[in-house]
């Protein structure tokens, strides 16, 4: 087997050392630093983006919190305004109800007064008509012994009863 021929062992080892150590030098001094540099730059960029993303997330969360706060404040204000409107409306309704009740009471009082007046008038009329009718009856029945004042008193008594 040519692999086991010791003639070329030293030559192979010698050239191996030269090539390997030269390649090691090239890699460690030229290529690896270049790759490392670009990977570090990329990592820094990624880190920067992550920090920015984190900041933006915080800003978004803050904005969301502000929005929720504003929404809560607006809701509270709206509720307060609604409550005030409701109270105002209730007061207005109560006022209007009072006014209507007063008007109604006045009308009722007026009606009652009219009824009373009509009633009194009617009673008065009834008195007069009854008196006239009684006088007519007396005249027709020739009951002159009965004085007009007696009739008046009698009717008055009946009516008052």
């Amino acid at each position, binding site marked *: 087997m040519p692999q086991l021929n010791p003639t070329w062992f030293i030559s*192979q080892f010698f*050239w191996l050392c030269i090539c390997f150590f030269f390649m090691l030098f090239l890699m460690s001094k030229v290529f690896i630093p270049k790759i490392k540099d670009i990977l570090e730059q990329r990592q820094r960029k990624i880190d920067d983006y992550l920090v920015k993303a984190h900041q933006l997330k915080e800003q978004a969360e803050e904005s969301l919190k502000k929005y929720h706060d504003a929404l809560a404040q607006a809701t509270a204000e709206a509720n307060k305004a609604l409550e005030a409107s409701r109270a105002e409306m209730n007061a207005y309704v109560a006022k209007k109800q009072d006014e209507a009740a007063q008007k109604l009471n006045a009308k009722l009082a007026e009606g009652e007064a009219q009824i009373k007046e009509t009633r009194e008038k009617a009673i008065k009329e009834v008195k007069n008509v009854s008196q006239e009718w009684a006088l007519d009856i007396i005249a027709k029945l020739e009951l002159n012994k009965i004085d007009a004042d007696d009739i008046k008193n009698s009717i008055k008594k009946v009516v008052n009863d």
Partner: protein
Amino acid sequence: MSNPMEQFNIQPIIPIKAGGYDISFTNSSLFMVLAVVVSALLFTICLRKRTIVPSLSQSIPEALYEFVSSLLKENAGAEALRYFPFIFTVFLFVAFGNLLGLFPYSFTFTSHVAAVGGLSLIALMFNICIGIKKKKWGYWRTFMPNGIPLALAPLIMPIEMISFLSKPFSLTVRLVANMTVGHIMLKIIAGFVLALGVGGVVPLLFNSCIVVFEIFIALLQAFIYTVLSCIYLSDAIHSH
């Protein structure tokens, strides 16, 4: 049909002698150099225009970096990341060595004991250096697990040392055997393509499937070699 082992023959390209040793530039050396050049070219092209949002070409080295980095972190902990360039180079060197060997008329230096054994030896020495640097004299306790009675030390320590030294050996044998067998199989089946004439279409199609499979094996073996290197590195960094 030519000998399937011929593809593993080392041919000198530039003969060099130094201090009585033959350190000729061979076809194996050429493909080691090519592994370095191709990986360097790939990285240069892909990393030419670097942008925050990576292009498809830029994603390749980045994906390799992330892959090996996570592999090292998972197997040896975050502390081992300081040795990332070494592990990354091991992965690329083995992966490109394996992949370049799949081209026709190319040479697979990762199928050679000397090359892979040398790399495993470098990894072993690297681990020993880290271990000694980190634990000082306490590193030798690696060969004497906790809770073992002192009386058993003469028995346990040689076993632990053999176990320790067998790590690069097992790494080498695994990679060399996989690469050798794969290439022999490709060569034998390729031999049938010409020998069978028109009927050679069948082994040709089969060989095409094998090549795809071998690409997967090449990457898988580089991955296994790297994972094991990470585990051995973890042993050197952490306590026994």
